């Protein structure tokens, strides 16, 4: 470093970068406090959204997964049997119910999270 450098350094050290305003400390603390509250609110909102999504997925899972291939003859047979029961169903409703029963016969039976295995068998594997 030559003499000129020393001169410049001498000028520089007569000063220093200006310090922060006195109220910056309180603003920093206030901001982190606000941030903490927002972080909590964000976490709660995220949990709520995840919960709602899971509930919606759970409700629509039978629409998402295509129904298993059903035996048409077996479905008709069930529809006729349901119609003979003299229940307050229209023909279409009886047929839809027969489709559900027929599809239920083909579902892979998995243990339910809620309820016993016997319940699982009785309702055709549907929770």
């Amino acid at each position, binding site marked *: 470093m030559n003499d000129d450098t020393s001169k410049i350094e001498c000028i520089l*050290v007569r000063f*220093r970068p*200006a310090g922060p305003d006195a109220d*910056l400390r309180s603003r*920093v603390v206030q901001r*982190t406090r606000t941030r903490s509250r927002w972080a909590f609110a964000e976490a709660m909102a995220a949990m709520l959204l995840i919960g709602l999504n899971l509930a919606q997925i759970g409700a629509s899972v039978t629409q998402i997964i295509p129904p298993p291939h059903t035996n048409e003859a077996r479905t008709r047979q069930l529809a006729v049997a349901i119609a003979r029961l003299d229940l307050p169903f229209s023909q279409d409703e009886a047929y839809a119910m027969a489709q559900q029963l027929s599809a239920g016969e083909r579902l892979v039976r998995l243990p339910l999270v809620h309820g016993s295995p016997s319940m699982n068998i009785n309702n055709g594997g549907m929770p």
Partner: protein
Amino acid sequence: MSGLGIQEDRLSGPAAGQPREHWIAQAYDALGPALYRYALMILADRALAEDALQQAFTRLLGRGRLDEVSSAKAFLRVIVRNEAYRLLAARRPTETLEQADVRLLERVDDSVERLDEQRQLERALRQLPPDQREVVHLKVYEQLSFAEIAQLLAIPPNTAASRYRYAIAHLREFLPAPEGRRM
């Protein structure tokens, strides 16, 4: 700063039951003003320097494992630096240095009136590129060696030294000699 969990070379998280804002206030008392000066020298703008500092402390609060940090000052300095350069990049092109807040320096010795000299030096510093101003700050005001500056900025020591030389040469050009000649 024993008992606060915050030291120059050691940073630990808030103690059990200690509100985080208290811990942040203590961290600010220990390191805030020095970090603000560093941000100010990079940005040459007081409002942006405040933004950089606030953002740095917010990030510090969001950090999960503070025990992994070996040097509080170095850690926060990197955050402040990153934030300062992010703000520089985001600054609107229409915002010129003349529009920026003017108070960049303060006198070390208040008994000596050097207002003209201060204004000239501020103007000269504003003419420097931020990376040169940053090296001047680290070398002159934080008294780091070129090796330490190089480590902090992740650049070779020769680059740090040459940035400093360029900065001094620019300052020499912009600062008039006492007798009216250029230095």
